[in-house]
């Protein structure tokens, strides 16, 4: 017979309540990991979706996501003429707030040339943009519906399609539109000082037909390093590979969050260890008489150690399972995207097993110290 299991059955209500409490703690640990993965996914999602071989931006800048960058749109044609370049596309990125259903909706406007690099999207409902103006494909998280008309800047746009998990590095849901529309919006959302200067001088714009970056797709077997080195020689442009762009985003956007979340996760795991340790210790004290009796009738230490360790593991694993179910059931209700990866879950499971073993050390030590004579009355 398994004494640990029988003891659990005997105090099932208390065990379940303890596990539920523990599951909330472990659910938060899983949630923290999920938030971190979500941050990474959101920060790198668009970069990975575009999957550029080379990003070309304003000289001295680190790209359209980490820093603002403006270059003339015709740079695209100059770069397209480079050896090894298969295709190029100009893109505009801009975060704006628009009124929607009585609230402010913060969106990440992505302007790209349809059919060119930078215009990639995964449409889950509706269709792609086919008209040159005022059509958008919105991320589902915007809450926009197909057919809905919405004012961005001074123009009304029609939602023709919905996409999924396309956000800015800050988590704002993306809205894809034509490059032309995005350029107009960018001009409309320019700082008022710039707009005043434009009005004063009577010129339409001091920087006409500008974009934020050029997305470059290379020919098969083309050397990316050679292309970037060649572009970098032009002083007014900077070029970086797709991997370098990801590294920049990781360092500038994710690194602090990673440390912060890692710290909280570590603290929560320590708290979990202490909590499990205290529960196991208390459970051991509750069984002091039974353990003394077991020792007295000749039960070996391994029977007593197994009783405590198995209960600690049962509690940790049950708490983990309930926590995992809870977090999966509620993940869609979190304001930031939670990405729960199987490898993280398995790693956490391994950590929980170690935590349970560590936590049961106090209980085991106290159990092994119990004097069998204490089972005798008087």
């Amino acid at each position, binding site marked *: 017979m398994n004494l640990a299991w029988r003891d659990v059955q005997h105090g099932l209500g208390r065990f379940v309540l303890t596990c539920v409490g523990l599951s909330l703690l472990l659910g938060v640990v899983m949630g923290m990991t999920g938030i971190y993965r979500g941050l990474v996914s959101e920060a790198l999602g668009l970069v990975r979706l575009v999957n550029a071989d080379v990003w070309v931006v304003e000289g001295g800048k680190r790209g359209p996501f980490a820093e603002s960058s403006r270059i003339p749109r015709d740079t695209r044609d100059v770069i397209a003429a480079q050896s090894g370049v298969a295709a190029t596309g100009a893109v505009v990125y801009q975060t704006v707030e628009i009124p929607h259903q009585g609230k402010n909706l913060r969106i990440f406007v992505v302007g790209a040339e349809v059919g060119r690099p930078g215009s990639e999207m995964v449409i889950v409902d509706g269709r792609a943009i086919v008209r040159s103006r005022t059509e958008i494909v919105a991320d589902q998280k915007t809450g926009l519906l197909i057919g809905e008309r919405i004012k961005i800047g001074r123009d009304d746009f029609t939602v023709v399609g919905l996409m999924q998990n396309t956000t800015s590095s800050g988590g704002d849901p993306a809205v894809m539109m034509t490059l032309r529309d995005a350029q107009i919006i960018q001009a409309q959302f320019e700082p008022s000082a710039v707009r005043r200067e434009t009005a004063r001088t009577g010129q339409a714009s001091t920087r006409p037909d500008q974009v934020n970056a050029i997305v470059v797709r290379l020919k098969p077997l083309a050397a990316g390093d050679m292309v970037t080195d060649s572009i970098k020689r032009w002083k007014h442009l900077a070029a970086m590979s797709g991997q370098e762009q990801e590294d920049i985003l990781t360092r500038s956007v994710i690194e602090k969050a990673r440390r912060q979340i890692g710290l909280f996760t570590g603290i929560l795991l320590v708290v979990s260890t202490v909590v499990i340790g205290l529960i196991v210790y208390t459970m051991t004290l509750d069984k002091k008489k039974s353990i003394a009796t077991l020792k007295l009738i*000749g039960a070996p230490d391994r029977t007593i150690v197994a009783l405590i360790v198995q209960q600690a593991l049962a509690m940790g694993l049950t708490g983990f399972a309930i926590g995992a179910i809870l977090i999966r059931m509620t993940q869609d209700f979190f304001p930031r995207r939670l990405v729960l990866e199987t490898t993280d879950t398995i790693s956490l499971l391994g950590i929980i097993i170690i935590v349970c073993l560590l936590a049961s050390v106090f209980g085991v030590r106290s159990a092994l110290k119990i004097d069998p004579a204490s*089972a005798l009355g008087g």
Partner: protein
Amino acid sequence: MEDPRKPVVEIINLSKSFGEGSTQVRALVDIDLTVYAGEVIGLIGPSGSGKSTLLNCIGCITDPNSGSMTLVGRKVFQDRWLVGDLRRMRLETIGFIFQFHNLLPFISAMENVALVRQLIGNTADDARARAMELLRYLQVDNRADALPAKLSGGEAQRVAIARALANEPRIILADEPTAALDSERATIVINLMKKVAVERRAAVLVVTHDEKIFSRLDRMVHLRDGRIVSNAKSALP
């Protein structure tokens, strides 16, 4: 055939003290005691007289300081323990009965008894079969599946006796086994112990203050200040 006068417990000059120097307490002083198979011995005396310490020494729970102790023909103590695994020694040789039954609360009456058989190395099925046999012997088999909390005091004590017998011990040590029982149930329990002692050729040592059972004891060993002051057949009717 076994010699009926062969001692099961043989203690010579056993001493035990607690503390040191001016705070030293001599719990047992030069105890000589022999208990034979089939005997039910009462250890009596006032509180602090050393009867529980003597029971603990015989039960291999407390280390004596000096003297010698032979259990079931095997010398286990000669100024130091001569047995490496005292817990195994207890499991194979000694049965314990407590004042408050001390059954594990989270397993059934039958499982409490079967656990000892499993610890010895029996398979689960064999252990259960043997446990049921013992519960039948003690006429409490109808409560086999009940948890200890659901048993009456008398039933629980009979299950505790069944557990004490599960390892077929040659020595049964009982600490105030009838203290929590009324006189009718106390008589049943002591009669059971006597029956066990005779039928299973076991030596039973009972620490007790319960005068109700004095008449059922074969011998009463009276302790005072750690010494045996009398060791005689029960004088009560």
